[in-house]
């Protein structure tokens, strides 16, 4: 488990055009230097937004990764809810979910 490295990968991916291109053409190679656990690698490559959220990735980083993956806003919110339903509560960080798994706060 390496939340810092996982977050750093997504932080860099959000701001580095070369890394974005590499991630699209050779994703395994792009993420190799970050030393992620198997779960983390799978969550990034799939992408499993719900698991990334539960692992504790800061929403301000995750939101942009979701957009980069072409995931629409309401779908992004739902995937996080589904992640909590499937994997349990957020395990780290300050972006825990307070509402129930079947609530839709923003009406989105």
């Amino acid at each position: 488990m390496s939340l810092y490295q996982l977050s750093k990968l997504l932080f860099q991916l959000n701001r580095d055009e070369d890394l974005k291109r590499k991630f699209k053409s050779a994703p395994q190679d792009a993420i190799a230097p970050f030393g992620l656990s198997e779960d983390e690698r799978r969550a990034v490559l799939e992408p499993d937004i719900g698991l990334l959220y539960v692992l504790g990735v800061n929403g301000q980083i995750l939101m942009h990764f979701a957009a980069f993956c072409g995931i629409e806003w309401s779908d992004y919110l739902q995937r996080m809810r589904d992640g909590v339903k499937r994997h349990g509560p957020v395990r780290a960080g300050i972006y825990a979910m307070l509402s129930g798994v079947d609530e839709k706060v923003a009406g989105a």
Partner: protein
Amino acid sequence: MSLVFSGICSHAPGITGRAERADPALRDPLYKAFGKMRDALNAARPDALIVVAAEHFANFFMNNMPAYALGMADAYDGPIEDAEWLRIPHRTVRGNPDLSRRLIVEVQKSVDVAYAEEWRFDHGIMVPLHFLDPDNKLTIIPGNINCQGPPLTPLRRAWAFGEALRHACDAVPERIALVCTGGISHWPATPDSGMINVDWDKDFLNRWAHQDKDAMLSYTDAETYRDAGQGGFEIRTFIAAAAAARGRGTIHFYAPIPIFAVGCTVATMEIV
């Protein structure tokens, strides 16, 4: 010369990126309030606008996180986000490294601010600029308070940063405007996005508008997190604006707009 304008506003990316999903009865008055703020800003004839934001990992990360930073570049660009996602076209913004340097030297007399000769603007600065400087004419100096990656700077230091900015503005010959941007209560980019604690927001804005320093600085981070979410940590930018302006504030617009994920705020403060 001095500080010639001081205001606060929201910067949530939904304000532009999800514009069509908001109730026009709330959205349009918000946009109108931004327009009035733009008019007031222009009427102050600033030589430069300092925008103090709470950036969201566009430039600063937990490998080297400054509590406070000011830009010192001759140009900046943004948005760092996908322009279509944010619905704000990419622009290059004019800076003024000489003015930045002089301001930073003054700020450093009381606050050890970091400086950055590279800075890419995220929605925290781009959303305000979209409304306040639509023609990209102003000289901009970006500022930042770390409100995202704990441990966070204490509120009393955010106040000291605002005081230091005021001292710096008063020490240079240019006319300086200050806009501090952030959210009040909100739970952005989480499944709770859209949750807003309106009572908490109104109470905070009341403390802010009345220049009630003790009340503004009395929140603990645990209380803020409980009542106002991780987005509530961004009150640091509003507190800095109050410390810089020293006067009474006027709330021109406040309304919770859930699809924008925040209680949208536009306010100015008298400079005394």
